[in-house]
């Protein structure tokens, strides 16, 4: 059976982390859960340790992209064969991890992106769905040659071989677009899987999208 690592980047997520870890462990107890505490100021790291998962702690806050990369690098070192990125805020549904890793286990895909816009219903706020995400999809298509239904999906899974090719450098929120771009650039077999997103707040706002573009643009000059 393939070793599967679930990476949870966490920054001040003490309100939801325990439940998120429990839901993943309930979905499959054999999965390795790696929580990456991004220098939280609350007791996120303590809760993760108490839950008995692997905890990696950033001594300085470096952003979600950096935390995911830390967890992914650790998963590669610990010989995981499939790596899943899963948010700590309780927006994702743990039972859907099986759906997202299925195409990789079956050998049909190297990387699978969760999508809010396929068959399952997510309560995406109207402005975000109709304006922000449409613009983001357009930007992804024009500038990054990425053609996916969900332009900012944080729920994703990939094989170990794919992980070794996905060397993203965006530490903050632009990592999402960069991972998609790298997947297409490296000609990985990419698929989308329908996932449910439970919105607790608006999430990424319009100015956040502008910031992502700025980070991505600067990243082009820092190779």
């Amino acid at each position, binding site marked *: 059976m393939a070793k599967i690592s679930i990476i949870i980047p966490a920054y001040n997520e003490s309100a939801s982390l325990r439940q998120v870890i429990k839901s993943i462990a309930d979905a499959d107890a054999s999965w390795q859960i790696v929580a*990456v505490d991004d220098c939280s100021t609350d007791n996120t*790291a303590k809760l993760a*340790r*108490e*839950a*008995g998962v*692997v*905890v*990696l*702690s*950033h*001594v*300085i806050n*470096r952003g979600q992209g*950096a935390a995911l*990369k*830390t967890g992914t*690098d*650790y998963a590669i*070192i610990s010989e995981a064969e499939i790596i899943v990125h899963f948010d700590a805020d309780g927006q994702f549904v743990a039972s859907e991890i099986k759906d997202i890793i299925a195409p990789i286990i079956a050998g049909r895909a190297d990387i699978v992106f969760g999508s809010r816009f396929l068959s399952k219903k997510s309560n995406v706020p109207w402005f975000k769905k109709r304006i922000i995400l449409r613009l983001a999809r357009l930007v992804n298509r024009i500038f990054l040659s990425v053609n996916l239904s969900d332009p900012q999906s944080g729920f994703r899974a990939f094989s170990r071989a794919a992980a070794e090719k996905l060397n993203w*450098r965006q*530490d903050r929120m632009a990592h999402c677009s960069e991972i998609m771009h790298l997947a297409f650039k490296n000609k990985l077999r990419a698929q989308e899987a329908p996932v449910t997103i439970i919105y607790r707040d608006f999430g990424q706002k319009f100015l956040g999208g502008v910031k992502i573009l700025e980070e991505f643009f*600067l*990243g082009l*000059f*820092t190779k």
Partner: protein
Amino acid sequence: MFIQQVIGLIIIVCFIFRLFWQKRQNHINAAEFSFWLVFWVIAALAIIFLRQIDGLVRYLGFTASGINVLLYLGVALLFYFIFRLRIRLAKVEGEITKVVREIAINNKNYK
């Protein structure tokens, strides 16, 4: 020479004196010293030969005066330096992340 040119040159001379003082106190390295010295000398030459620059600007077909063109070039240069600074900052941030990651992985924590 206009009074404005004289004031400009006095200001530049002050900056050059300060530059030599900073070098003597080891507050800046040789490369920085050379860069700023060349910068201020060019600025002084631009002020001294303002009339000739006016002529050159007219010859090149610009309608603005020499001092305006120098101002535009100065602003463009400032934007370029800020951009370079942002890139350097992004690189340093990336290096910090690598160190933080290394520490995190080497100190992994089980209960």
